[in-house]
């Protein structure tokens, strides 16, 4: 088990390899479809994303009526492949060091990881309760005009469990499993 602690850096994520099980501690920012589209359209981000991690997640967040504090009640990853058209450019333009999501991403993002020193972290799909427990606090929210699930939520996490499935060296676990399972499928259909 490896650890990745805040502040993150391109040097630190370049050390990570496909198959590494990693516990992330520090700040992460949620961002899904609408955020990626807006960033890709060239809108300046409301917060400096340099050396930060984006989490593909539309959390369920409740606000305490009295204290106005936010609390995350469920926060599993959403399917990442929808950001495939934008992700590599977001890596290039805003200097992020990685993304967390589920289901993996395609060749364009893999190339982006290699070119800009980024990593794709796979969280466990459906594990909304375990992952919400790793979030200590909601520190800020930006672009709330996009609606709660689509806004950028700044979260503090401790030991957030992920697996590196695409690294900064051009390796993808998804491409590997796709190919090996295809070979097995051919055998099964003979």
């Amino acid at each position, binding site marked *: 088990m490896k650890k990745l602690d805040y502040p993150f850096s391109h040097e630190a994520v370049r050390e990570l390899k496909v*198959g590494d*099980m990693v516990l992330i501690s520090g700040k992460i920012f949620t961002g899904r479809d609408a955020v990626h589209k807006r960033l890709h359209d060239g809108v300046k981000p409301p917060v400096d994303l340099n050396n930060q991690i984006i989490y593909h997640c*539309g*959390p*369920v967040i*409740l606000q305490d009526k009295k204290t106005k504090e936010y609390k995350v*009640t*469920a*926060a*599993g990853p*959403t*399917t990442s*492949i929808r950001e495939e058209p934008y992700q590599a450019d977001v890596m290039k333009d805003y200097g992020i060091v990685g993304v967390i999501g*589920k*289901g*993996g991403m395609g060749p364009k993002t893999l190339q982006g990881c290699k070119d800009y020193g980024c990593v794709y972290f*796979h969280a*466990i*799909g*459906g*594990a*909304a*309760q*375990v992952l919400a*427990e790793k979030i200590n606090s909601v520190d800020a929210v930006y672009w709330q005009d996009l*609606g709660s699930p689509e806004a950028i939520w700044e979260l503090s996490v401790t030991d957030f*469990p992920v*697996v590196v*499935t695409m690294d900064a060296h051009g390796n993808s*676990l*998804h491409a*590997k*499993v*796709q190919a*090996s*399972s*295809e070979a*097995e*499928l051919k055998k*099964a*259909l003979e």
Partner: protein
Amino acid sequence: MAVKKKSAIKKTAKKAAKKTVKKVTKKPVKTTAPKKNIKKTAPKAKKAVAKAVNTQKSLEVSLIELIKQTSAVLPDDVQKVILEALEREEKNTTAEYAMNIIKANIELAKKKSQPLCQDTGTILFYIDHPVNFDQNKFTAQIKKAVVKATELGYLRQNSVDSLTGENSGMNVGPGHPSIHYHQHNKKTVEVKLMLKGGGCENVGAQYSLPETRMEAGRDLNGVRKVILDAVHKAQGKGCGPGVLGICIGGDRGAGYIESKEQLLRKLDDKNSIPELALLEQEIVETSNKLGIGPMGFGGKTTLLGCKIGVLNRLPASFFVSISYMCWAFRRQGVELGSNNQIKKWLY
């Protein structure tokens, strides 16, 4: 678990009973009839009104309890195969790691009585009812319960207008919730509920045989080929390890409906058609040899189960419809008593 459920039901039932008592006692005050008159005619009418209000209220309570349990607690048959899958994976692999987190998530959601997964999915109700059953009334009650369960956070605001993109925030709208009625010859009412997330729904597939690319003909071998193709195409994207519900035959619409109804079968049951029983078993074994594994990380368990049904087809068509259910296989069911209280849990 069963004990816990019972006490929870009793509590909510008690609360409901208290509320209805209040309501009923208030009602006569609202009427404009002279007091004398009420005293004379009230007992019978009052009893009937009280009974109707009572059974209606307890139906709402029962349905909300069903939604809550379905969203937070995996049925025993699913938990069993998940634990078996965890045992099978090699130690210190990403597959074992994924299965361990899944196990922890199942326990935590149950303990906190909160949604297992934030995507509480398509809300699919299946109701088996006797002759002379009022479906319109029941549908209205289901919608009411769904709205309430959404407000209580058992369901995510998950229903979007396909044209405007607007989220109703209530999980009610054209096609939502999805309600399926079946009339049976028994006197009981059975309500089953399945919550099916978007990730796994997206990897479902329908094939039309013959399929030339795979050389899949119009026979069981052809059926087998396209099912395995669908498993391979899904990789880990449907939040595997998953369960397949499959229908051979039917038209396109009936095929998909039947494929989902196959998921209502208990995982440890046996298909009454011997060829299909064999095929179900073989699909699971072969899929698990593909090495896709939990979340598509690679590993020994790609499928937790496979259920196949069959419908007649037209001479010109031969569809194979496949629904993929994620590991967070949320399904429950209840048998209602004569007063609409939960009499028995079905899974």
